[in-house]
């Protein structure tokens, strides 16, 4: 695609004046890109936040291992070493029964007031364990049941399994919807650009007759596509930023602090990385490939 400096300057000027000359078509093309990328971007925001919320919950998933009071000190020592050496565990925290009682008192207050001394404490020593990945919890818990000095292993089996299934479903549905939207965007943009090319087929035909190379003809269209795509991506980015910022402020104002939403700067970083190249790329590819039929003169 060699192109001289004069031709490049000409292409830039042509692209600009064509955008202006066909301003209704330009606006329609930008509109299509805006709508599709706004939907895609909006869904990405929801999905990123869902991922954040589910990963927060997943982070909190842990195994509680209660120590058998009748086991020997040697067995308990053996258990401690085995837990520390376990490859799937990244956090092993011993909780003395006194500390467990203290926590219980903090949570329940007066209800447990009667248990004052160590001798009255009905609780057991335990370990709080974190696995490397939340999905490992079930397998690790079952394995730990066979360890020495173990009275009981608890990991909220039903809740955790349900949570993981829900997370997986959310991710799959999200991925499916985003792929669907992206494909729709490609078709819509390609068709809109094909329409602008169709409107100007006469111009293209004349260019071919006077000896223009295919790339000389394509360049202004490619630059136009690039501009339409970039503008079509920038507008939804701005809109999403303002809407998201307002949503964050609303969450703060209504004290919905349990909703740990992704900060606007992080969301925008992700969206800019995805939507801007997507919009620009779609514009360029849409222009370049919509022209094929009209270049065969």
């Amino acid at each position, binding site marked *: 695609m060699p192109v*001289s400096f*004069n*031709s490049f300057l*000409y292409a830039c000027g042509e692209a600009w004046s064509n955008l202006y*000359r066909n301003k209704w078509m330009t606006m329609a093309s930008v509109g299509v890109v805006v709508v599709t990328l706004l939907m895609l971007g909006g869904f990405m925001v929801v999905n990123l936040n869902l991922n954040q919320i589910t990963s927060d919950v997943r982070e909190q998933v842990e195994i509680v291992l209660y120590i058998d009071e009748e086991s020997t000190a040697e067995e308990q020592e053996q258990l401690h070493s085995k837990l520390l050496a376990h490859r799937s565990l990244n956090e092993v925290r011993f909780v003395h029964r006194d500390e467990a009682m203290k926590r219980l008192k903090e949570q329940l207050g007066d209800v447990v007031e009667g248990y004052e001394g160590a001798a009255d404490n009905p609780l057991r020593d335990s370990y709080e364990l974190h696995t490397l990945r939340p999905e490992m919890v079930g397998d690790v818990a079952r394995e730990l049941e066979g360890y020495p000095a173990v009275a009981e292993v608890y990991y909220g089996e039903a809740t955790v399994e349900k949570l993981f299934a829900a997370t997986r479903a959310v991710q799959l549905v999200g991925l499916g919807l985003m792929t669907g939207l992206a494909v729709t965007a490609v078709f819509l943009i390609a068709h809109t650009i094909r329409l602008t090319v169709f409107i100007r087929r*006469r*111009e293209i*035909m*004349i*260019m*071919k*007759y*006077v*000896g*223009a*190379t*295919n790339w*000389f003809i394509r360049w202004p269209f490619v630059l136009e596509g690039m501009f339409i795509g970039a503008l079509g991506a920038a507008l939804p980015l701005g809109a999403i930023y303002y809407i998201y910022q307002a949503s964050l402020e609303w969450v703060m104002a209504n004290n919905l602090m349990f909703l740990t939403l992704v900060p606007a700067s992080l969301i925008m970083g992700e969206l800019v990385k995805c939507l801007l190249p997507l919009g620009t790329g779609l514009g360029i590819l849409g222009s370049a490939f919509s022209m094929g039929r009209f270049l065969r*003169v």
Partner: protein
Amino acid sequence: MVEAKGIYHRYDKKGKDVLIDINFMINRGEFVFFVGPSGAGKSTLFKMIIREIIPREGYLKVFGHDLSGMRQSRVPYLRRNIGMVFQDFRLLDERTTAENIAFAMRVTGASQREIRRRVPYVLELVGLREKAAARVCDLSGGEQQRVGLARAIINRPAMIIADEPTGNLDPDNSYEIMNILRTINIRGTTVLVATHNSEIVDRLKKRVIHLNQGRLTVDEEKGAYASVL
């Protein structure tokens, strides 16, 4: 300059032949009329010369190159050496006269300076100096065809192909256009004109090639329209 040997062509595999065993040779600087009824194959032949279509059989050499074997990427450079004039003018209606002509120069990568120097000269040649800034859609048919002619000669092509250039014009404008073509030819450019205008063919007394139902029936030096029918 143009050599056709044993050319056959049909648009569909099962369709009828639109060109049958066409043979001729056109030398540098010639002025040739192609005449014949509609559908005789004149436009098909012109499309072959600019390599818009390739003959199914036989060969066509233009500027010494066999067009059947020419790479697609070389076609734009062939066309820069051939100025095209059409019956329906094929101009960019929303642009000015000067812009339409400069357009053909820009395609070749010409600089703005070259364009500024050459466009007024060519406008002068076709008598449209005063209309340089006028939009093409505001010009008369005759003036539009002169813009078409100016665009065809702006890159100093070795050959001009005019397909029914006077088909949409009144007699005065037709004569004017033919005069310009004759002037271009006198300066050394080969000119090929497809026409139904018998009066002009008879008056100019140039070489006439007659096509009928795809066959070349008459090829006559200093021919007349009537003599070939």
